[in-house]
């Protein structure tokens, strides 16, 4: 080394650097409740995370129509698009997010690890399906260990549904765990349809429609068959402590009413709303109409299947906290009715 820093200076530098790093890290966690309850004034900002997919359509309408902003004068609404439930969970832990939307299993995993977040609304039920391009694969039993199954990630709703089906048919929830491939839906669809080594993909809308519309594909398991009934696909989750004070409750209430309005607009097939959604999902209006007409795609705030997911995920060992009670997982038990 041509330039030598004195040893004492170097040690000091390392020390200061570690201190800065440690403080930066801890700083994030101190903001867990950035909107400290102090006055009755409305929250200055509320941060909401959504993911991509047709199941989030009411949120997209609330956002593009400014429905929530209209109900919360004086509050700035920040919309954030995140790629998966883990990112939402981490953003909430870092105190950077107030509300997030995701599948029930990732929510339960967080609650199991001691995160005091709660579901405040349902968003949608949706047709999920395990789709294959292999004509020789006509059912789960035809999948050999060499076949690869793509899904968003372990612990996702798709993974738990696959485990439930495999438990029912073969008495082993982990039968397919060694042949999973974690791919985001668009990549998984590309890999499946281009014959790039993916035998089957557990898809959600709109990918489920696009894949089934392609040549030579078939569904070998529907989400409903796997679950053994109806279940909510996406729920709205309030970050820990959010909604405990009147200001947070006001936000959640306003969001609930806004979502109901958006759901009604979609239900009525409001032409501007349909055109907007078609633009967002990059499909022609006619195609979006067909997607929305699927009787299994239902937007509702009612939550179904939370208790059953809690039960099976505990049975399969994904949840270990025996203290989880349904009533502590929701902000108000009304959504369960």
């Amino acid at each position: 080394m041509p330039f030598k820093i004195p040893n004492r200076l170097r040690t000091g530098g390392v020390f200061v650097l570690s201190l800065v790093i440690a403080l930066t890290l801890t700083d994030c966690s101190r903001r867990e409740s950035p909107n400290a309850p102090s006055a009755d004034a409305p929250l200055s900002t509320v941060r909401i995370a959504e993911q991509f997919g047709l199941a989030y359509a009411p949120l997209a309408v609330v956002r593009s129509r400014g429905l929530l902003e209209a109900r919360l004068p004086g509050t700035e609404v920040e919309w954030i698009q995140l790629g998966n439930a883990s990112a939402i969970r981490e953003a909430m832990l870092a105190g950077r997010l107030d509300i997030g939307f995701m599948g029930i299993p990732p929510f339960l995993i967080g609650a199991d690890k001691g995160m005091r977040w709660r579901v405040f609304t349902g968003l949608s039920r949706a047709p999920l399906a395990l789709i294959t391009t292999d004509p020789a694969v006509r059912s789960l039993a035809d999948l050999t260990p060499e076949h690869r199954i793509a899904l968003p990630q372990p612990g996702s709703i798709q993974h738990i549904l696959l485990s439930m089906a495999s438990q029912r048919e073969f008495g082993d929830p982990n039968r397919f765990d060694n042949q999973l491939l974690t791919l985001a839906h668009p990549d998984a669809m590309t890999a499946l349809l281009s014959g790039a080594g993916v035998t089957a993909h557990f898809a959600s809308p709109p990918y489920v429609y696009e894949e089934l519309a392609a040549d030579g594909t078939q569904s070998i398991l529907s989400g409903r068959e796997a679950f053994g009934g109806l279940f909510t696909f996406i729920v709205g989750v309030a970050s820990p402590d959010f909604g405990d004070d009147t200001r947070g409750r006001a936000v959640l209430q306003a969001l609930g009413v806004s979502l109901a309005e958006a759901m009604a607009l979609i239900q009525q097939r409001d032409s501007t709303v349909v055109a907007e959604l078609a633009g967002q999902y990059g499909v022609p209006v006619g195609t979006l109409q067909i997607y929305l007409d699927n009787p299994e795609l239902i937007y509702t705030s009612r939550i179904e299947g939370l208790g059953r997911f809690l039960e099976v995920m505990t049975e399969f060992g994904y949840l270990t906290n025996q203290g989880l009670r349904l009533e502590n997982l929701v902000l108000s038990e009304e959504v369960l009715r």
Partner: protein
Amino acid sequence: MKTTPRSFLRFALVLLAIVILWEGGRAVFNVSPLVMPGVLSVLSSLGTALASGEILHQLAFSFSLIGMGIGIGAGLAVLALIIGAQSRVAAEVMGTVASLFHPLPGIALLPVVILWFGVGKMAIVVIIVHSVFWPLLTNLQAGYRSVSPTYHLVGRNLEMSPTSFAVRIAAPATVPYILAGLRIAWARSWRALISAEMIFGAVAAHGGIGWFLHTRRVFMDTAGLFAGILVVMLVGSLVERVVFGFVERSTIDRWGMNG
């Protein structure tokens, strides 16, 4: 870099300072263990993963992919060097291509790699080959160019055949460049592998260390996540210091070529 008692002491002190700051920060700011787990719980996670053989198995898998990638990448780089040595046009074309591809992170190629090579082991190997090939080729070419004209004259005087000249004079003279290239290749392939495995990797049977991190993340095992990060840091630094250190000491240091 030699491991002396002094440097070991310094290393231990830095480690101790980090642990104290970490635990102190946790206590002072009352941080949730979901955000910053305690050092002890990280170590106990690490112990469990080591004892079950899980992490070793995954490391072995990761290393087999890197070995394959570096092997193929190095073979291709030597081949490219030989072709380049035969014709100036070929060398110039290769230089241009290298300047375009060298800065391209392997992970940026992932979508294309999935389309062309599917999603198996092959895809990860291709990404590693990409991150290994260009730095190795660039270093090999620089090394080849640096062989002093005097050596060429000596070779001619001794009436050496081109092969004999390459093996007995050019190759040893290029070793510092080859080692520097391998160091970069290793660092880049280790990064590329972990990113690729975190984006897609199969569970258990075929997963590597990046997959270990990914599963800890999705199941929200923060202590396990930090244990995995520790392993990634330790392995990276061990290979860098111990493996490369050993090879350098037994070659270029011994030959007095390390300036």
